[in-house]
């Protein structure tokens, strides 16, 4: 019973955060509501007995990835987004379509899925078992993901670094503007 209450409370927080992400117009508000979604999802993982996944969710998702997002938002000084008018037909057809599809999916999930309740903490979710699977059965995919991360970091550096011509031009302008400063810098 307690688990159901916890699930409902944090599920409601989760959905509220997701809807808030859609309705907020400033990206930083959306980012903070995404943090709420991720933190409450971590609680849902705890309820499912996946303690390690919950910890990684908080550290990697709510920590690292969202810091990256907030950093970029502040770096680019993103303002309130401009709205564009959607087409009227899309609203007229889309909203009923979404409602019908949602009700259908919910009905199928609630009635047709063999919905045995998920027992809490019934499965071993501790880091030892996860590590045994991750570093034994899934060793090759694990190594491939490390290569993937490597490529992603290199790609991010290449993409985010300024093009060489721009840097040269900027440094040339700087040396033209203050040659004595650049010369003093070279001496040291």
């Amino acid at each position: 019973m307690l688990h159901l209450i916890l699930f409902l409370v944090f599920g409601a927080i989760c959905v509220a955060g997701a809807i808030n992400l859609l309705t907020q117009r400033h990206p930083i508000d959306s980012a903070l509501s995404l943090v709420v979604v991720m933190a409450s999802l971590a609680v849902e993982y705890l309820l499912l007995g996946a303690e390690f996944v919950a910890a990684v969710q908080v550290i990697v998702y709510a920590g690292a990835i969202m810091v990256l997002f907030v950093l970029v938002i502040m770096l680019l000084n993103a303002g309130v987004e401009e709205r564009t008018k959607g087409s009227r037909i899309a609203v007229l057809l889309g909203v009923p379509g979404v409602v019908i599809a949602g009700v259908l999916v919910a009905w199928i999930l609630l009635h047709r899925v063999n919905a045995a309740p998920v027992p809490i903490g019934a499965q071993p979710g501790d880091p030892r078992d996860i590590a045994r699977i991750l570093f034994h059965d899934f060793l090759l995919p694990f190594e491939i993901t490390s290569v993937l991360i490597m490529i992603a970091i290199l790609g991010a550096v290449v993409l985010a670094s300024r093009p060489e011509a721009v840097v040269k031009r900027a440094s040339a302008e700087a040396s033209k503007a203050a040659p004595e400063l650049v010369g003093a810098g070279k001496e040291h």
Partner: protein
Amino acid sequence: MVPLSYYLLLSGILFVCGVLGFLIKRNIITIFMSIELMLNGVNLSFVAFAAHWHALRGQIFVFFVMVVAAAEAAVGLAIIIAVYRTRETLNVDQVNLLKL
């Protein structure tokens, strides 16, 4: 004891919110956050099925999804910075040319 279908419903709602945000938002960073929301919804269903079938391997896939999400966030945000540098806007409606 919470039925599996509740978890799947929550996961579906999160995914649909992500799709909606991807379609209706106009800020490129917010669109990117909607993709993260979709990935989170999928992760929840992975963990729920892992708990349901007593298969720990479902949780392993969550880690792989997180790794891919992290790589995607790094590359995607670098692309956003590059786009902002050349066009000086974050509005996707104004980013409609492949080459300036």
